[in-house]
């Protein structure tokens, strides 16, 4: 079955099982490997991408859900790594091993799109489902606040 979707602004027609996880389509068929496979059960957040601006966990999202819609991966967040979150991530040296960071950034981007000036509690609530085994949580929160133009007290 052919599924038509737009990924980072480019339209694709994929001949796939409509129940294939979107993550498989992105990584294996479109070679967009910035999005990571973590737990495969929507429990860690490493695979977060956007569909029409909303954060979804692509490891459990059937590709049919993205049909006719706009998918954005970490590769599409900015053409040159200049999204405020990406800049803050670099400036504060947020990642340790880095594996979870694409999901962290995509979740934070979905938050800032709807809440440009989030409180600490709102940041914590929105990122509560994104796990970082290296424990970079305090740096993640600082970077989100920096990207939002908020003071880091």
């Amino acid at each position, binding site marked *: 079955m052919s599924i038509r979707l737009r990924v980072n602004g480019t339209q694709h027609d994929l001949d796939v099982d409509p129940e294939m996880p979107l993550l498989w389509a992105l990584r294996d068929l479109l070679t967009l490997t910035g999005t990571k496979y973590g737990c*495969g*059960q*929507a*429990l860690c957040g490493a695979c*977060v991408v956007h569909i029409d601006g*909303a*954060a*979804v*966990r692509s*490891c*459990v*999202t*059937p590709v049919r*859900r993205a049909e006719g819609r706009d998918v954005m991966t970490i590769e599409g967040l900015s053409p040159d790594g200049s999204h405020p979150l990406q800049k803050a991530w670099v400036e504060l040296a947020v990642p340790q091993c880095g594996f979870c960071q694409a999901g962290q950034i995509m*979740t*934070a981007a*979905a*938050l800032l*799109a*709807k*809440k440009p000036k989030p409180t600490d509690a*709102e940041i914590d*609530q*929105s*990122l*509560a*489902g994104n796990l970082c085994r290296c424990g970079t949580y305090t740096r993640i929160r600082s970077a989100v606040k920096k990207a939002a133009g908020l003071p880091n007290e």
Partner: protein
Amino acid sequence: MSLRSKALGIVLGAGAAGVMLSLAFGAGCGGRAAHSTATKLPPADAQALRAPQAFSSIGDKKERSRALFLEASRVMFHPRCANCHPAGDTPTQGDDFRVHDPPVARGPADQGVPGLECTSCHQDRNVELARVPGAPQWHLAPKVMAWQGRTPRSLCEQLKDPARNGGKSLAEIVEHSAHDALVGWGWKPGDGRVPAPGTQAEYGALMAAWVKDGAECPREESQP
């Protein structure tokens, strides 16, 4: 005569064989019940619902309506249903009502928060390989529709109150109970989860019979 002496004590022991529906009629004799009778209902195990016809032996229409609601409340209080009718700001999960993992928040529209919405993970159907439950319009019941911690009576009163039932008429509640897809997930929860008792059709029939007999609410002490 005290209200208590007038009260009908209804005991519907779901899960036990040979269930008795005890009706003790107060007759105005100094607070003492002067007359009592007992109606035998067919047994029901934890996964079954009694059909409305099983309640036809209850002659009094109001009492029958109360008994029908108590039976239907076994569905509403079941973890598959009550987990997403929490009194707080996070859903629960499992058969022991443990806090949802990951620790999600209700959000202003009962659909989660930006970046971590209910539908960030939950799809329009169960994802069996990942064991993530799903159904159309997956979301939390608004806090005014909390079922956890309610008695059957308070649940009944809440369900009849348009301010706390989404502005629904009784007919709309019956329709919602019988046909809503998210409600229906309770009977096909996937991944070995224990479903709500009976079927959605049987639940809808109980709710319809409850309304037909007057939509009476159980007495405060009554339990299913």
